[in-house]
């Protein structure tokens, strides 16, 4: 009974918010396929074991379907599902160890194309100027072969020309014709954001941020928020995290430092509020705040990924990395867990479809 009420509440909230939503996502209330109006979750699967999968879940987690790519396309997805990026009606699923990208209809998950050339250790994609920019580590042990691969979004073919970038490009986000690449560092550590001009496909500048930048968010002013986790202690050169804002016009940086042993991750941004994850807790702060919050909103978590939408926080828990994981939802008004569901193995990314 309670869950039914909750479902209705969520549904009404979703309707309410989608109607005044100005995302470039296609937002119609009519279902465009089985997997419209819900979450897509990437389950990385075990490295080298080819058991990556996609889970679909309704926003209230009452309807959950695992292994949807395999079910729709009657074949295995691939090895190590790293990320999903939407562009128009398509979703691009990056498979890190398979060195491939599965292009599917985002609502039906029907396969449209498979891109499996040029890529080498692909991670994430952003779209700008009709092109998809794919971050690639190259060989993990080589610091000088990292690059962005370029996909022609109209044909879903990959260009042989690539953009050479600094070590360890990871998250990537686009604002108009400006593409920002966070250099988390691959197997090592890096501390820059590369700025690429999608008109010329050249690196226009690099901006220094905190060590090991792990998340990027754009705000409504066109400024870029970068959360850096800091260098881990095992390197013998530990540094704390750093939250930075890069001005979208002049790339000037303002930052707030975490303590030297604090390593935050999973930055989310909604309606001027920032959320991040640190040592099993979720913190929130106003984007205008000049100091970090001292008390957590949620505690006792074990997240491997996290997103916020419509005042609901979704976290994924990989548990022991060899069993099915979980997705959990929390109301950010009451800070209570609202629901949970079983996913595939090592759920990592949550995407709103």
């Amino acid at each position, binding site marked *: 009974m309670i869950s039914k009420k909750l479902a209705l509440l969520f549904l009404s909230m979703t309707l309410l918010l989608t109607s005044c939503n100005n995302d470039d996502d296609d937002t119609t209330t009519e279902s465009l396929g089985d997997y419209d109006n819900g979450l897509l979750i990437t389950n990385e699967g075990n490295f080298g074991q*080819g*058991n990556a999968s996609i889970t679909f879940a309704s926003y209230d987690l009452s309807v959950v379907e695992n292994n949807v790519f395999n079910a729709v396309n009657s074949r295995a997805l691939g090895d190590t599902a790293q990320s999903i990026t939407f562009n128009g009606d398509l979703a691009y699923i990056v498979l890190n160890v*398979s060195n491939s990208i599965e292009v599917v209809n985002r609502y039906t998950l029907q396969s449209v194309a498979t891109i499996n050339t040029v890529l080498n250790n692909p991670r994430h994609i952003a779209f700008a100027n009709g092109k998809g920019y794919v971050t690639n580590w190259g060989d993990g*042990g*080589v610091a000088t072969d990292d690059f962005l691969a370029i996909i022609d979004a109209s044909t879903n073919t990959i260009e042989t020309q690539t953009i050479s970038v600094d070590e360890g490009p990871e998250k990537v986000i686009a604002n108009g014709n400006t593409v920002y690449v966070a250099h988390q560092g691959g197997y090592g550590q890096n501390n820059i954001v590369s700025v690429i001009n999608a008109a010329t496909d050249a690196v226009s500048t690099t901006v220094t941020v905190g060590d090991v930048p792990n998340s990027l968010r754009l705000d409504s002013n066109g400024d870029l928020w970068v959360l850096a986790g800091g260098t881990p202690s*095992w390197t013998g050169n530990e540094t704390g995290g750093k939250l930075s804002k890069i001005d979208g016009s002049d790339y000037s940086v303002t930052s707030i430092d975490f303590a030297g042993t604090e390593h935050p991750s999973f930055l989310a941004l909604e309606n001027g509020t920032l959320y991040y994850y640190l040592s099993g807790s979720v913190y929130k702060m106003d984007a205008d705040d000049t100091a970090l919050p001292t008390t957590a909103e949620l505690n006792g978590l*074990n997240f491997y990924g996290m997103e916020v939408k419509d005042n609901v926080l979704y976290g994924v828990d990989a548990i022991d990395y060899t*069993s099915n994981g979980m997705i959990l939802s929390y109301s950010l008004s009451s800070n209570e867990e609202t629901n949970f569901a079983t996913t595939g193995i090592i759920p990592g990314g949550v995407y709103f479809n």
Partner: protein
Amino acid sequence: MIRILFFVLLLCCYSVAKAQTSIDSIQRLDEVVLSDVKLKRYNEGYKLTVLNDSILRKNGNSLTDVLRFNSNIYFKENGYGMVSSASFRGTNASQTAVIWNGININSQLNGQVDFNTISTANYNNISIRSGGGSVQYGSGAIGGTVHLSNDSDFTKHINHRLQLGYGSFETENASYNVSFGNNNWSGNAGVSYVNTENDYRILGTDEKNENGAFNNLDLNLNLGYVLSQKDVLKVYHQNFRSDRAFSSTLLAPSNSKYETEDYRSMLEWAHVGDNFTSSLKAVHLLEQFKYFENKDLNNYSKGQAKTWLVKHHYKRNVSKNMALSVITDYSYITAEGNSYVDPKRNAFSATAILNHQFSSKFRYNLNVRKDVISDFKSPLVFAGDLSYKLGEPYTLKFNASKNFRVPTFNDLYWNPGGNLDLEPEESFQFDLGHQFKILKSIQLKLNTFYIETSDLIQWRPNAETNYWNPVNIANAKHYGLEVELGYLKQIHAHYFNLVAAYSYTETEDVEKNQPLYYVPLHKGNTALSYNFKSFTAYYQHLFTGEVDIIGGSLNGYDVGNLGCSYELNATGKLNYILDLKVNNIYNTYYENVALRPMPNRNFNIQLTLKF
């Protein structure tokens, strides 16, 4: 004469007691010719399966293949010829110990043995001892132990064997072995090489096994010298080099390769006194690997471990029927590599073994061992075994033991993650065996076992640090049943030999309350051979049941191999053997590790010259 006796001994490891005088001389002879006396002497209550020369030559030079088709051990092989690890009675990859001439050679870095980095070409025999053996063989001897033996032959002889082969997927192999001896000297030297493209077709697709090429070189040299009536000096050396590309999986391409090198050397001085024997061994082991993520670049990560070991075995005959052994060893181990800061380990162990032949029917052994290791505390382990001959055809065997596996250098020192607070894994187990010998032609072994392992070391993500740590976390139970049947039949000049083995293995991950991954509930293998004068034909069959894997299961399968050989000029000084073999005759699609298909039907032809 000595040689004949020696072969008889090899064939009947559990031979019934003979007159006391002959036992003495046999035991004294053992010290001289055997490299691993313990294996023969203190195992009355264990199941021992000896694979002799003729079996070893039927499966190329791959230890994985030999054991897959001739034992209960399941192999997780990452595609043919790639990294291969054992699951013995359902235990994990680091719970089977491999013993080279009496010395434990499991990797100091990861505790495992890659069974595709051991060639069978240059061993006299390979034995499989089922059950816990930590007291005698140290860390990792939980499921069982696999023994590689080079024995000495001090009869006057010189024999050469040259083998040349060619097979599917551009597989070339060549080996040469010379064995010689006289009253004072014995020796054998061998070299074995295999090189293959290994690009077998993936059944049901148009694809081939990509990036699977490999080559292996094995060098062996063993010498024995009789110093005096009472003293023998022996030298053993073995070197294995392998250069393997790491094959792609069905879903992930690969461009990487792996180079490994192992050097193993041992000097042994055996002294046979009037009522005692003593053996002093000095051993050096070196293992190293280079992993190339991209095989076209000279950019690799590496690891290396060196072991220096001194081992003394003193055995005193307390009475006619009772012997006491004291074994002490000291080892110093160092490692280096990209992920360690020069760790070192000092280890000392002391073992006592009481061997008692209570009557001609009843024998037992009691063993106890304590290790003192520099980087953690090690448990006191013990073992007891007995054999009781209840009647002419039937012998009852029983053994119980406590065993351990020490944390490896990776577990302790890997950066990041290495955990210095780890403790050894422990197991407690027992095994009840029945052996029947009927009419000299039928031999039946039936074993039931129970193994409980605790404090199993597993790498787990650490939410605090964001990287993985090994922790003593899991517990497991294993129990099962094994049946082994041997049948020999002669009709005039026609010889038939049937060997069949079946195992039923239940496992449980106690924490998760589910079976362990990659353990087949059922596994069976059989080999049937027929010989008439110079002609021999044989068939091998392997059935492996379904195994659980993370998030799913792998299908069971049946694979059969068929071979025949013909010996030319069998009575002459130089004889030729021509051998033709078809592997996987039914063209079965199968995987031992998910997404890593094994070869389709393939052919191999061998020419062996003996002179």
